[in-house]
Each structure stands twice: as C-alpha cells, then as structure tokens.
C-alpha cells in the first residue's frame, strides 16, 4: 500500500510530475512496458497469455488545489481553486506554494467581522495567502504567478482507518500499484493508466483511448461518502466499511451494463462485499473514456472516501483491501467481459 507516500506528495492538476515519478519508480520493473505520453499520463502494460482483449484500469494522479493568480503590494498572494474546492474548507489552513514555500490562508478575526459575515462563505477573491513577505518585492523573490498551492496535511492511520489529503484519487493510484505488485500474468492484456487533469474536466484520460484502444476500461476512484451527520441517512452516497462502491451512473454517463454486471458477478462469485454508489453527482474518467474516439465500455469501482475535496479525507482499510481483491479477481476471470 502506497497511500501514505502518495498522500504526502503534492500534485495539483497540471502539476502531477512528482506523483508520476514516484509511481513510475515503484512500478517500472514490474510491468512489460511503461511510457509517459504528451499530456503527462503514465501508462503501464502487462502482456496477457491469450490476449483476447485489452483491459484498461485508470486512476488519476492529480488532486484539487490552488494556483497563485496575483501578488498584492502588501506581499500576500491572490489565488484561485484548481478543481472544485469551496472556500468553506480553506480558512485557517496551512498550505505550501510550489512544493516548497510555507504559507497560511487566514481570515479577518472573529472580533472584527460584521454580524452577517459569521456564517457567510467568502469568495476566493476576498482571501489571501500569507507567506511572511513584507511587500510585493520580497514576495516575488519567493513565489511567482502560476505557482501551484497545496494543503499541508499529515497522513495518519490508526486501526481500521486512514486520514490525509488527496485520497481522491491517490487511493485509486495506490490500489492499482498494489494490483501491479501481485505480479501475476493474466489471460488478457492489461493496461494501467495513471492520468492527469481529472479534477479540471476529465482531461488526461481523453488521450489514453487512442494510445491503448481498450475493449473495456475500469476507473478506480476515491468517491464521495457523505455517511455522516451532515446529511440525512437516506441521502448518503456510500458507507465506509461496507465494501467497494460500484457506480451505475454518474453525471454524463450511464455505466455500460455489461461492465457493470461483470463487476457485480465477480464480486458475488468470490464473496467480496460491495455497495452501490447511491448518488449520481460528480463524474469520473469513465465518462471521458466512454465518449472518446469510438467509445469504450467503461465502469467505475471506488473506495468510499469521506470529506473529499477538503484538506483531510478518510477511508476504511477493509474497503481498500476489498477493492484490490475485486480487481485481482476481475483480472483472473478473464472471460467475464466476453458474455
């Protein structure tokens, strides 16, 4: 399991190189072929014994974060979100600019706020990052416009759960790396794509289809849970600890029925617990893979993840282990997609 290392690496959409180098270094000796494409996706290939069809597994390397958009005269930094982040989760947080410069996102002290400010979410344009610079000139020696910004969050695990940043989708990357580590050879050709720019519109995966031409694709995600007191129980999406979540549809894509049923049948045959992702909001690279080129029959399997798109997410290790196992069994059942 590589979740700890992956979680601690900073890799906002468009700035995935550190994540890519880490994954490449760990897997390159365990696959038959590996290459980086023009956009920065990392694709690994394992030849099948029969090679009846090509199966693609994809996880995205990028995480939501921010970009420095301007530098004020007082030395503070204006910034904008990269991917979907609400200002609600950014106040009072430590951040790192360009993977090196420490900063903080503060806010007007509660003593000085207007009454109607107490529960009103600010706009990003009202917020600044403080890096300890006296003025613009000093700030310009430390950072520049266009630098990426990440949350600073310790990774922790205790008992059955782990918490940290960027689990969407480093958990998917870690799952696929674990599958590669199993080092078995399967009947079908298997491709593992670690893609860029998912959080800014499913962009990296768009160029994978042309390079791989897969028959079937399965996207591995860290997906919304919502199983907490913030929502009524009947509005929860997935439940931590109840197994991998299988998607039937999400924004912009209804999952291919063959792929969907194949995933369920393997899980049932091997007694692997699973659940459905019961909310359809959000989208994944499965949607992009399905609508690229000639179209790909794609599915999604996710590790339920609480509080995604915030500085601190949470998963359950049982869900993680069962996701790895489900993928392993799908690969072993080479003919499941033939039906």
């Amino acid at each position, binding site marked *: 399991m590589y979740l700890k290392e992956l979680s601690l690496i900073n890799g906002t959409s468009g700035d995935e190189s550190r994540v890519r180098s880490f994954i490449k270094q760990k897997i390159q000796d365990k696959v038959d072929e590996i290459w980086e494409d023009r956009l920065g996706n990392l694709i690994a290939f394992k030849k099948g014994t029969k090679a009846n069809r090509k199966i693609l597994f994809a996880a995205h390397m990028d995480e939501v974060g921010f970009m420095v958009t301007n530098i004020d005269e*007082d030395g503070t930094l204006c910034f904008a979100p990269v991917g979907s982040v609400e200002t609600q989760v950014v106040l*009072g947080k430590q951040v790192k600019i360009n993977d090196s410069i420490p900063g903080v996102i503060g806010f007007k002290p509660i003593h000085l706020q207007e009454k109607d400010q107490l529960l009103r979410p600010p706009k990003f344009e009202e917020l600044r990052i*403080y890096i300890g*610079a006296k003025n613009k000139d000093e700030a310009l020696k430390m950072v520049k416009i266009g630098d990426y910004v990440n949350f600073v969050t310790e990774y922790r695990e205790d008992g059955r759960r782990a918490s940290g940043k960027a689990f969407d989708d480093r958990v998917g990357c870690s799952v696929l790396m674990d599958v590669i580590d199993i080092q078995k050879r399967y009947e079908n050709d298997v491709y593992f794509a670690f893609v860029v720019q998912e959080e800014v519109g499913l962009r990296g995966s768009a160029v994978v289809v042309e390079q791989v031409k897969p028959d079937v694709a399965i996207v591995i995600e860290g997906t919304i849970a919502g199983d*907490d007191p913030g929502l009524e129980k009947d509005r929860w999406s997935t439940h*931590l600890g109840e197994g991998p979540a299988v998607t039937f549809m999400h924004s912009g894509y209804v999952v291919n029925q063959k792929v969907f049923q194949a995933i369920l049948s393997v899980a049932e045959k091997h007694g692997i617990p699973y659940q459905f992702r019961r909310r359809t909001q959000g989208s994944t690279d499965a949607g992009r893979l399905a609508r690229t080129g000639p179209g790909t029959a794609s599915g999604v399997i996710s590790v339920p993840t609480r509080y995604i798109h915030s500085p601190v997410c949470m998963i359950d290790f049982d869900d993680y282990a069962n996701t790895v196992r489900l993928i392993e069994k799908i690969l072993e059942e080479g003919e499941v997609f033939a039906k």
Partner: protein
Amino acid sequence: MNTKELLMQLSNLDGPSGFETLVLDVIEPILAKVCDRTWRNRVGTLVGEKKGSGKKKVGIFAHVDEIGLVVARVEEGNFLRLETVGGVDPKVLLAQRVKVYTKKGTISGIVGTLPPHLQKEEHRSRFPDYDKIFVDVSCDSSADAVRVGDVCVFDVKAMEINGKVCGKALDNRAGCASLLLAAESLQKLKHESDVYFIFSSQEEINGPGASSIAYELELDEAIVVDVTHANVKQGAFPTIKLGEGPALAVGPAIDPEFYKRSVEIAQRNGVKTQIEPIPARSGTDTDQVQITRIGVRTLLVSIPLMYMHTPVEVVDPKDVEETSRLLALIVAE
C-alpha cells in the same frame, strides 16, 4: 532562551480556559529558574515572584489560556457535537484536525465537511453553525473513550513562515514568552520593585484568573501583555503592523502617567512602539485588574498578531523580544 523555539513550544501546548495545567506544567519550571519562588492560586493562575526592595509591587500579566472547544454530545458512529470555549469562528473549524482530551488519552478527530458534489444552494450559501458542525473520531481506534465534557483543541503544529512563527494559541502564548524572556533578562538588572510574573487563567471567557491574583498581591502597578490585531484595516483606527514593535494602548483602561513614563522609557532605549487607541473596555485582563481593591495603575502592552483565534495565528519573534526588553526596562526603572 531561543525566542522562535520558545514560541513554537508554547503554541504546541494545549490549554483552553480552565484547562491550563498542561501549559503551566511547562512554564513553571522555566519560570522557577529565573524567579525567587513560584506558586499557583485557587483558580489556576501561576505566579513567579522576584523580590526587589519592596518599595512597590508590580505585576506583569499574560493570560495562559487559549480558545477551545468542549464535547457537548457523543452520537452514534463516533461523531461528536461541540460547544465553544471563547470565540472560535466556525469558519476556521471546518476540515480541521482536532484533538480531544479524554480520560484515556488524546483522540484524533476531523471536523467533517460535505463534499461539493453533494452540496445544495443552502450549503453553499451558509457555513454550518455549531448546531450542524460535527467531529468524526472514527479514525481513532480509541474513539469510544470520548465523553461529554472532554476538552477539544485545534490539532495543528506551529511552523516558521519566512522568519515569523505561525500556529494556534499564540494569543497569548506570545505574551507568555515575552514574560519568560523578561524574567530572564531581569536577572541581570537591578530593580527596586517587587516584580510578579503572572500567567493568568481563563481570560478568553472573562474568567477570574487575573483579578483573583491582583487581589491577593495588592499590586500598585500592573502591566498586561496580550496580543492585538495586526495587518488588518479597522475603520478609523491606525493599522498595527507586524514587526513594528509592541503596541501601547491609550484609553480609560490605562493609567495615563504609567503610559507616558513607558513611552519615554521606550524612546530612551530605542524600543520601537506603536500606539493603539482603545476608547472603551480593552477586552483584556486590564479591565478587571484596574478595578481590583483600591485600584491598580495599569499599562497594556500588545504584541501584533495576525489571524487571531484561528489555527494559523502569526507573530514576529522580533516583536516578542522587543516587548520583553520593554517590560524589563520598565520594571527596572
């Protein structure tokens, strides 16, 4: 004492109002080395006495408590509801790690947030208040130990940002640090006054920490060291700046002669100061101390601090050092 290290050490200690023992246990041995004797009063305030000739009694106050939270309800699935201890902005609480002090040790928790995918307009347009905010402790294998009444704090480590120190509770551990530094330097200076270094409890909730000890000691003069808002525009008021030295307050809570004398001492010795007009109550221990017994002559010295009452408060160690220098100079006069 290295100022930066001292600030970070004190920031990382946890001590919301009424729960200051863990902080005092670290401060007291440091204080004992530079004072004649130390003791704690009935309401948890720590005092270090440094005898002079007994001509005058001067107390130097810094509150030792910080804002915090308390567990008000434990719900199924290892979720907690909170009440605040002092003014904790709900906006800076979301998606933070927090630490809960239970009888069986500390528990790690996360203040949960709804992912954008599941938010509706009602969520986007309004922060959850304390009726809706919850802590998820299911990531800690000892989560079942949490009980109602357990104290909860921001779980954040102090760090350095371009020479400044950033962390929680620098309101008022920065003040505490300046007292320790002043006590240290006072060892090399002669002073006629009996000087009391006072680390008072429960300031953040207007509690009894400072007034009780002012009563006990029958002080003639009191210098209260606290923090003030830096680098933020406040209407008609001057902007206090980080790194420009301590701010000396003027207003009804301050003795005008004491203020005048202190400004002169600062000028004579090249201590850069700023001026902070406070037209009414100061919102610090000064307010209570001034009206204790027959009255105490007060001075309020504030260390500039950014982002007060958040987990990312920022102070400049230079301001803390200059504050301590000024304190020592004033009492050594």
